[in-house]
C-alpha cells in the first residue's frame, strides 16, 4: 500500500471539479504527472499543482493506492468519481458528488460532505464522520438510476431526499435526516438512526426504510401492516418493536417502512388496526 497526500494550498471560492482525484486515474503516475493533471476551477482550467501540494508517492498500481486529502475542500466536487479500486481519505470537508458512480474501493471523510454523496453508486463504501447534505445515494434529475449497490454510512446528520430513486445497497445515517428519505426507491435499504423530519418512503415501490428516532407522521399512502419485534438491516437485526407499513400504495409499491415504537407515541393510532386484525 502506498500513500499520496494532497494538501490544499489556498482557500477556494468558486467550484472546483476534481473528478481526476481517484486511485484509478492517479495510480501508476509520477508526482510530476499528477501535478500536471487538469481540473476546472470555475471557468478556468488549472493544474492540480495550482491548488495542491503533493507528498508521498503514487507510483504504484491503483489497487494499492491510498489518496489522502487535507484541507477545507467544501468547493471541491466529484472526488473519487467512478472509482473502482483503492481508497481515499479526507481530513476536512468535501464538496458535492463525492464518490459519484463509484463501483468499488473505499472513501472516508473526517469532516462534512456536500450533497449527492455516492450518487449513482454501484459498489464500494463511503463513510462520512460528520454531516452530509441532501440526496445521499441518489439519482440526478430526470433519471431513475439512484444508488445500486455498496454502502454509505453517515455518522452525523444528512439532509433531504436521501436514497432518492435508490435501487440497491445501504444508506445509513446515524444522526437526523431531513424529509423524504427513500423517495421513489425501488430496492435497497435506508436506515435513519436519529429523527427524521417526515415523509419517509414517499412514492417508494420497493426496498426498506427504517427509522429508529421519531417520525412526525406516516404518509396516508402507507398502510399499517403489523408490529414487529425485530427488523433486519443487511446482516444486523435491529431490536424494536417496530410499526411496519406497506407502501407507497399510490405507486402500487411493496416497500416496507419500519418505525420504532418507543420513539413514536404519536403513531399509537396504528395499534387500533392491530386489534381489528386480531378480531
Amino acid at each position: 500500500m502506498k500513500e499520496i497526500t494532497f494538501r490544499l494550498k489556498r482557500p477556494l471560492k468558486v467550484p472546483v471539479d476534481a473528478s481526476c482525484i481517484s486511485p484509478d486515474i492517479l495510480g501508476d503516475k509520477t508526482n510530476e504527472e499528477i501535478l500536471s493533471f487538469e481540473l476546472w476551477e470555475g471557468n478556468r482550467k488549472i493544474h492540480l499543482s495550482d491548488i495542491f501540494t503533493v507528498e508521498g508517492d503514487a507510483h504504484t498500481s491503483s489497487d494499492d493506492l491510498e489518496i489522502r486529502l487535507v484541507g477545507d475542500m467544501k468547493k471541491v466536487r466529484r472526488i473519487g468519481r467512478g472509482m473502482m479500486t483503492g481508497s481515499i481519505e479526507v481530513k476536512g470537508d468535501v464538496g458535492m458528488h463525492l464518490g459519484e458512480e463509484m463501483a468499488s474501493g473505499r472513501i472516508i471523510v473526517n469532516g462534512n460532505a456536500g450533497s449527492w454523496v455516492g450518487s449513482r453508486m454501484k459498489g464500494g463504501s463511503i463513510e462520512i464522520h460528520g454531516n452530509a447534505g441532501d440526496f445521499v445515494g441518489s439519482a440526478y434529475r430526470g433519471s431513475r438510476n439512484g444508488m445500486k449497490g455498496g454502502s454509505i454510512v453517515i455518522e452525523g446528520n444528512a439532509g433531504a431526499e436521501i436514497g432518492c430513486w435508490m435501487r440497491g445497497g445501504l444508506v445509513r445515517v446515524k444522526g437526523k435526516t431531513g424529509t423524504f428519505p427513500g423517495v421513489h426507491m425501488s430496492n435497497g435499504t435506508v436506515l435513519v438512526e436519529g429523527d427524521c423530519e417526515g415523509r419517509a418512503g414517499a412514492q417508494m415501490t420497493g426496498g426498506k426504510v427504517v427509522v429508529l428516532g421519531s417520525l412526525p407522521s406516516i404518509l396516508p399512502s402507507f398502510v399499517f401492516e403489523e408490529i414487529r419485534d425485530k427488523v433486519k438491516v443487511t446482516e444486523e437485526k435491529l431490536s424494536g418493536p417496530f410499526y411496519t407499513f406497506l407502501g407507497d400504495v399510490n405507486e402500487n409499491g411493496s416497500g416496507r417502512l419500519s418505525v420504532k415504537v418507543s420513539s413514536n407515541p404519536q403513531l399509537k393510532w396504528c395499534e387500533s388496526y392491530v386489534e381489528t386484525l386480531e378480531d
Partner: protein
Amino acid sequence: MTALSEKIISDVVCTICGTGCDDLQIRIKDGKIIEAKNACAVSISKFLEQHAQRYSSPMIRRDGELKCASFDEAVCKAATILSESRYPILLGWSLTSAEATCIGVELAELVGGVVDNNTGFCHGPGLIGAQDIGVSTCTLGEVRHRADVVVYWGANPIHAHPRHIARYTVLSKGRFREGRKERKMIVVDVRKTDTARMADLFIQIEPNGDYELLSALRMAVKGEELEQQVIAGVSSERIEELADLLVRCEFGIIFYGVGLTMSRGKSRNLDAALSLVRDLNRSTKFLIMPMRGHFNVCGANEVTSWITGYPYAVDLSRGYPFYNPGETSAVDILSRRECDAALVVSSDPVSHLPYSVAKYLSEIPLVTMDPHVTATTMVSDVAFPTAIMGIEASGSLYRMDGVVLECKKLLDPPQSVKSDVDVLRAILDRVKSLKGA
C-alpha cells in the same frame, strides 16, 4: 407626428403576468399613454405610470457611489467584470424578451457563467417534478372550451393573475361550455383568499401539508381507504368528496401557484400533483398548469432549453451545459457565496430573495439592467437603464401555456435609453473583442 397627436393601438400584449392578455387597447396622447382599456388594475399601473422612478443614464460606481457614465464606459466596465470573473452568474430573464434571453445565454457561454432565471424561486419545482413524472398540460383555450372542473391550488389569481378566471376558466365561455354554471371551481389554500370565496368547494389546508393532502387524494382517486381521519387539517370524508369530483368530471385541470411550489416538499409536491393528474387520466381527461408569475419566465425556460437543453440553472463554466438545481441554481450559488460577479437583467433579487442571499449579491461586482430604480440597481457597480419591454421595446414572450405572443413597441423609450437586446449585444460584442485580444 404633430404635438397633439393621439392614437389608439389595439390588441396590445400585456407584460405583467403569465396570463398573457393580448387584447389591450392603448390610447397614446402626446407621447404618453393615457388609457389602457381591457387592462387589469396591475396592468393599468404599469401602462399609465411607466415613467415613475426611471433613470436615464448608465451608472458606474465610483468611490462607493453610483455616478452617471457614458454608455461605452458602462459597457466596457460590464464586459470587464464579466470576462474577468471565474464564476459569474447571469440572472433574471423573466421580464424581458425571448430575444434578449437568447443573447444572454450566448453571453453566459462566452464568459463561462451560470445562466439562471427566476424559475428557481417560482416554478422550478414544477419542472423538476415534470422531469420525474412528466406533465399533462394544454393551452388555455382547451380549458375555456372544455373544462367542467377547475382547481386552483395554492394560487390566488384574483390578486396575482386578475383576468385569468374571466379569460380562460370558470367565468369564460367556450365552444362546449356556456360559462360559470357549467363549471365547478375548487380552491385549495391555507387562507380563504378572494379566489377561494368564489369557489364551489374550498379546502383549507394546513401550511406545508400539501404533500400529505396530495398523497391522500391519490389514494382516494384509486379508491383506497384512508386509515387516518384527518390529513393536513382536512377530514378524510372531505378528501373523498374532492376525489369524487375529480374522477367524475369530463375535463378537469389544476392550476397551481407558488403556494404549492414553495411549501415544504417543493418539487415533491409537484411530483405528487403531476402523478395525481396522470393517474386521473386513466378515468377521465385531466391536466395541470403552473400559474407563471412574471410575463416571460416561461420564455426564459423555453429559450434556455432550446439552446442548452435545460430550462434554468445552467452552468456553462466548463464550456458545455450542465444542470443540477440545488447546485447550479442561483439561490444556492449565492448562499454558498460561490459566484464572484453577477449580471442581473430585469429582476430585483435584492428585494425578493432571502436576506443572506441578497446581501451576498450586494458584496460582489454586480451589473444590472432595469428600466426602474430598484434595491438591486442601488447596490450595483454598473447599472444600465433599459426600455420597458412591451411598451418601449418589441419582442416575443411566452405566456404560461407556452403560446408565443409578439409585443409591439408603443412608445419611444426616454432619450438615450436602450433596449435589453441592444445593451446585451453591446456587452456581448465587447466581451468577444476582449476574449479575442
